[in-house]
């Protein structure tokens, strides 16, 4: 699985990036030299050296790290493409040819594969509860009102998010109501919950008729690992709504951001995803896109 070609894209691209980095840094220092030099009285315990040094230390890419960056030989590592390919092949060997519900053995096996590749604990059931399926066709959902008065005009924080504008907003609230009681109580977690949510068929989950209240609370914002088994892309999403109706032929729905990242579409081009509970007993997993084999913040 390891790369053998000597002149790698990594080396070429890194060279380009480092050159850009150096140019940006030098331009910054030159342009703001006077300001940087006058701030010598900042206490030494904050960082060593000049303020320019402190500024670099607050930068994600301090110079010392760059000079240590891998020139020395490292053990060959598989590329992410190769890892993704390995995972999707393993999934392909386990999943049925059509998008049917998995049997117990398949569910366990898939959970083990996903846990291993994404460094999370991915389970088909959690705390004695489960959904009707873990493998199903995903359709597109709209944006949800996060707080009373949230509209498409107020929904996006930056212009780069406006590509999701065309998805529109659902006319009613999600199954669990507003994500926050008011605009002033919005925070990053609320933003991310609405951004990366899925709608699942809670009403078809085992025991729903008998334990409705308990299951309603259990499913509310429950973190799920949602994986496109064809390209290996995955997000950590929350259960944010109930649906879709059975007659649609779809088994779950994804927010616009979720669908975009997973590269899943609705309509004729629709396809399946895997959706597993994430057990956070060992630590929290952040919402949003999740990369194979990456360590997560706890």
């Amino acid at each position, binding site marked *: 699985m390891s790369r053998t070609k000597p002149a790698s894209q990594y080396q070429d691209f890194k060279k380009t990036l480092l050159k850009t980095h150096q140019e940006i840094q030098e331009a910054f220092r030159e342009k703001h030299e006077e300001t940087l030099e006058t701030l010598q009285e900042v206490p030494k315990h904050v960082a060593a050296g000049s303020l320019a040094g402190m500024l670099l230390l607050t930068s*994600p890419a301090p110079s010392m790290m760059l000079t240590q960056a891998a020139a020395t030989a490292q053990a060959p590592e598989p590329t*992410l493409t190769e890892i993704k390919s390995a995972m999707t092949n393993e999934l392909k060997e386990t999943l049925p040819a059509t998008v049917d519900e998995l049997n117990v053995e398949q569910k366990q096996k898939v959970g083990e594969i996903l846990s291993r590749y994404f460094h999370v604990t991915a389970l088909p059931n959690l705390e004695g509860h489960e959904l009707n399926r873990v493998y199903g066709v995903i359709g597109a959902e709209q944006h949800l009102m996060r707080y009373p008065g949230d509209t498409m005009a107020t929904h996006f924080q930056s212009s780069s998010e406006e590509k999701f504008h065309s998805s529109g907003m659902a006319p009613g609230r999600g199954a669990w109501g507003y994500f926050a009681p008011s605009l002033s109580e919005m925070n990053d977690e609320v933003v991310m919950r609405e951004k990366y949510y899925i709608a699942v068929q809670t009403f078809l989950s085992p025991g729903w008729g008998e334990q409705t209240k308990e299951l309603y609370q259990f499913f509310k914002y429950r973190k799920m690992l949602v994986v496109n088994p064809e390209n290996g892309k995955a997000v950590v999403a929350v259960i944010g709504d109930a649906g879709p109706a059975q007659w649609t032929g779809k088994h779950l729905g994804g927010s616009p951001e979720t669908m975009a990242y997973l590269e899943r579409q609705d309509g004729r081009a629709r396809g399946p995803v895997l959706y597993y509970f994430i057990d956070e007993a060992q630590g929290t997993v952040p919402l949003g896109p999740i990369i194979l084999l990456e360590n997560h913040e706890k």
Partner: protein
Amino acid sequence: MKNKHFYSHLIDESIVSAPLEKLELTLSEREEMIIIIHGNIHHLVLDLIMSELSKEDSERLLKHVVYEEHDSIWELLHQKIDSVEEKITKVIKDHLNEISQEAIKLINRK
């Protein structure tokens, strides 16, 4: 990214790594590239802001940055710079577009 900067909420991490998607990189190589990209973004954002502030305000800003006083940073920025979030988002987006173009050039060359 482990360190949360005052502008981090304006960045969708999936956009930062998007230019790298088509390159043949290992996990550690990818992480390294992302760190460098974040370093570029940090300097570009600070340059943008400081270019619109007086010297005195730039000094105040930098102190807040070093001490990670995000609320104070945003109070200053909202007082002194119009549409500051849009400007920051644009400078980040422009830089990521440049990097994407470089990545595409590299792939096409191979």
